């Protein structure tokens, strides 16, 4: 499998690796995928309660190089965005940025799922109602 330079860069220098306190109200955690499928991503966001801006993002991923790169990129992209803006990130944007081949598209889908799951967790903790649209997409 020939990887793009961007995938290799994220694999070699993954951004924002780590974990944050799951119990904090400001932190949303998304854990997606399954060990049997060969990929599990955990993406966490810390949201400023005043501005709803994602000030910090962390990830850990078990998976192939494309899965690691997709989640690493996702943490970079959500940082500095508001929760609403972060929900706009589409897996196709990740595919494009990392030049993922067709067999690796599911890695980008998983990264998008991880962002949504983390935001969903944060919303639940903070009593923010999910918009109808976000709920529909998150359920796919």
């Amino acid at each position, binding site marked *: 499998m020939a990887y793009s330079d961007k995938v290799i860069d994220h694999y070699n220098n*993954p951004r924002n*690796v780590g974990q944050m306190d799951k119990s904090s109200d400001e932190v949303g955690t998304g854990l997606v*995928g399954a*060990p049997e499928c*060969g990929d*599990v991503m955990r993406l966490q966001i810390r949201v400023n309660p005043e501005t709803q801006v994602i000030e910090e993002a962390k990830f850990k991923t*078990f*998976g192939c*190089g494309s*899965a690691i790169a997709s989640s690493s990129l996702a943490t970079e992209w959500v940082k500095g965005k508001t929760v609403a803006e972060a929900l706009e990130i589409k897996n196709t944007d990740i595919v494009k940025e990392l030049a993922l081949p067709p067999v690796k598209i599911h890695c980008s889908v998983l990264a998008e799922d991880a962002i949504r799951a983390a935001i969903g967790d944060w919303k639940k903790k903070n009593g923010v109602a999910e918009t109808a649209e976000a709920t529909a997409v998150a359920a796919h």
Partner: protein
Amino acid sequence: MSTLTNTVEHPAGVTLPIYMDNHATSPMDPRVLEAMLPFFIEKFGNAASRNHSFGWEAEQAVEIAREQIAKLIGASAKEIIFTSGATESNNLAIKGIAEMYKERGNHIITQVTEHKAVLDTCKRLEKYGYRVTYLPVKADGLIDIEDLKRAMDDKTILVSIMFANNEIGVIQPVAEIGKLCHEKGVIFHTDAVQAVGKIPVDVNAMNIDVLSLTAHKIYGPKGVGALYVRRRNPRVQISAQIDGGGHERGMRSGTLNVPSIVGLGKACEIAREEMASEAVRLQAMRDHLRKKLESALDYVEVNGSWEHRLPGNLNMSFVYVEGESLLMGINDVAVSSGSACTSATLEPSYVLKALGLGDDVAHSSIRFGLGRFNTMAEVDYVGDKVIGIVSKLRELSPLYEMVKEGIDLSKIEWAAH
């Protein structure tokens, strides 16, 4: 977190990339190439040409090769049929026997961790009305001889069980299987591609009736193999699957690939002379690699029987690290993984799954295949490199972190996708 790129010192005497995938194929031994070279331009004759010296020369070379191959497996030269490789040998053996003995019965017994050349051949025969039993393997990768006994009935014509497995290197109880087959009057075929030239193989002592082998796993050329077909006690007959000039006692038509056959013969001769010492050397390197990895890393598992294993095989799972990402980090080392991401089908290794391993462990497996040209310095380099990458990928692995925190991963409801 530090970079995942190559941080291992490039030691003296190690040339990158390192080839450690000798179950897939092996480099040619220069002595084999040397033996082959005269047969391309000078001695190019057709071994079937009976009326001039070019033909005689080619035929003589082929007969020497037949002798060299026979000697390695304890057969007689007349029992060796040349083919294009082990896939053809397996097809010819199984289809040829099924066709020849169809009046006697329609039942074939094989097992689940066979190579696809055997499994897919059996599947095709099922479409033609044959009945195939696929024996399971135990957790160590070996079949249970009692299972085989129970599976046999009065319609059983053929048992096809591999000698040694290509992924996990485990060696089946071939002598026991052969003995049982002879008692029951059932033909015993074995795909011995990984075993011939690596460990002692004796078709008479082990009661093997038909045996597939290939050149490119034993430092010979690709595209040439052989099928051993027993001529007495019992005499095994095989229906040809390729029709033509009636070469190879009518069992396999087609002009012989003389240079490659010479190469196969030479490869067998070298293997016979050097197998014993080479096995000791490979096993020492293999054991060293295992010890090195196990002493530095937790949650590593050897897949398959350790006791009944080829000297050059080490198949290990580095649990909580996905195999393809591990291969990506050791891209100057050629090894294989059982991870789905490295297979065309996106399914993890069916061999590892047959041992009862979870998909997650199969995803984490690496096969190291040591061969004639590997050195201890290379083994050390590869070991250090794997330790470094596994450690770094585990810093990235949410599963490793959770297990370290005492979380039982099997209790988590994963959203399978």
